[in-house]
């Protein structure tokens, strides 16, 4: 019961969604939209589990005075702060001028934008460290990267300014993107498509069943 029912659900639902693609008739034609709606509702319910888990772990740290319990307390406080404000504010919580919006603009945005921008530093250090002509493959990668990089900045065309138009770095970059890059991309995409087919089939048929857990 605990193991068979989930396997059965996966199989039936999975096959239904495959059939859906070929049947334009109701209810199959509505299933995409339904699934999207249902999934978002389930997500909204599931985040309760995640949030409780986060709060529980942090609370345990604070109570046990484990190392870093102060930071755990900060997690709890900031979570509570924005959640209470957001829920109290009603469904217009996002409108400009609300306290939720203030927190969003002055805390959430700077934090996520800065974390994102860390990428710029890592890009430089990765370029410095990793893009080396270690072997033929790495050399090919390096050369392609180099040409595309230099072809995308105005400097590239200044260096090759003596060449006739159509044969400068920017053209080379576009050529690489258009031909070899497209070809490689295609092979990867076809492979991915087939990989998805086989993974999905294994899941639907219950050959792959780890996510469903065990009998108890």
């Amino acid at each position: 019961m605990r193991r068979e029912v989930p396997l059965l659900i996966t199989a039936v639902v999975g096959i239904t969604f495959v059939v859906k693609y070929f049947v334009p008739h109701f209810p199959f034609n509505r299933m995409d939209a339904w699934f999207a709606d249902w999934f978002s509702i389930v997500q909204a319910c599931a985040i309760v589990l995640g949030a409780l888990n986060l709060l529980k772990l942090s609370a345990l740290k604070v109570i046990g005075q484990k190392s870093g319990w102060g930071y755990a307390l900060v997690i709890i406080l900031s979570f509570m702060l924005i959640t209470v404000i957001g829920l109290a504010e009603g469904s217009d919580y996002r409108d400009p001028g609300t306290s939720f919006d203030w927190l969003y603009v002055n805390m959430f945005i700077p934090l996520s934008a800065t974390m994102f921008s860390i990428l710029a530093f890592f890009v430089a250090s990765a370029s410095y460290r990793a893009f080396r002509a270690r072997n033929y493959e790495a050399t090919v990668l390096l050369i392609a990267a180099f040409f595309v990089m230099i072809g995308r900045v105005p400097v590239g065309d200044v260096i090759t300014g003596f060449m006739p138009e159509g044969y400068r770095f920017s053209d080379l970059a576009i050529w690489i993107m258009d031909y070899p890059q497209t070809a490689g991309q295609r092979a990867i995409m076809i492979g991915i498509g087939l990989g998805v087919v086989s993974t999905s089939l294994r899941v639907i048929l219950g050959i792959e069943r780890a996510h469903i857990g065990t009998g108890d």
Partner: protein
Amino acid sequence: MTSKLFLALLLLPFSGLAQDDPAGVDMLDTAVVVVAPPTSVIAVDHKYDKGERIDLTWVPSIDDQLVEGKVLAYRIYRIVNDGGPQLVADVATGVGPYQYADEDLHRDSIYSYYVAAVSSNYEAASTRTAPMSPQREWMNLDRKWLFLIALIVGGSVLLFITAARRGTKLFVRKIAGLEAVDEAVGRATEMGRPILFVPGIRDMDDVQTLAALTILGRVSRVIADYDTRIFMPTSRSLVMTAGRETVKAAYQAAGRPDKYSDDMVTYYTDEQFGYVAAVDGVMVREKPATVFLLGAFFAESLILAETGNYIGAIQIGGTARPAQLPFFIAACDFTLIGEELFAASAYLSGEPMQLGSLKGQDVGKAIAMIAIIVGAVAITIGEAWDVEFMHDIVTWLSGVFSTR
């Protein structure tokens, strides 16, 4: 026709009142712009739907074809069950193709249409189409070839799985990144440090997350055998739930259910970079010996992989997002490229049944490769020497592979 013209002239002095219609302003100082109506208005049932759509096409007014800007728009009128005409839509000119899809219709009503060409102050209507009702179909036959080929690929996956079950030996080549899994887990055991498993940042509705979880099942089985610690931070509550089930099942299968704890899998936040900040923190503080980055990754791929590299962990990365693969190649020790991510779980299991599914994928690749060769050769010969037969092959092949 003349009555319409008369009407238009009659209304001319008043039409300036329509202030927010810019065309109405022009009208005062120009004469009536007479245009010819559109012709050949054809209404056909939209094929392979549930019977709620009719497609209209027409040949544009001759004035539209000759003088730019004379015809401003086409108005679509619909007559339902012999009722009066209703204005359905305005279709802008100049954007071609000249067509309109009338949707949300009912199968039990009868529809007829006409299309009018509209100038700044004149409307010329076409003849009406024959009355008709939209039809519904049960199968989308446009997709019959897709169905057939998918059936062949899916069928061969099944075929190889059954063959393997009967004991046929199946050969699968070595995949470097996956050969390294045992070694990577072993290294963490030796060093007495944990293993970090990052399943990407997408939710359970992404197949890459599913693939990551299937690999997690295999990896955590090895970890349970070695008695090493695993830590899996997730950015989605559902992934946390599914991840717990997966790890728990692996520990049970290894006969060590007592070693499992829910704390192995935790949720931090749905926010992409909040999650990255937390995982980065975990990396530098816990210093895992091995890091798995498998699943759907976006811009955070390099931040995670660089931090992992910085702490000196062995890293196995894998994703089906081509844009992020170079970053894994740059900063990870082993990278599973696209399809290899999906093959990983079957490969790691080593069970013949699972390996059968990889053979099925190869059949798919073979079909694609043959189609590409035949298609390219046929189209080349066809174009170069204008061979009718080759053209036919190409038309047929692209019909087969079209997925409209």
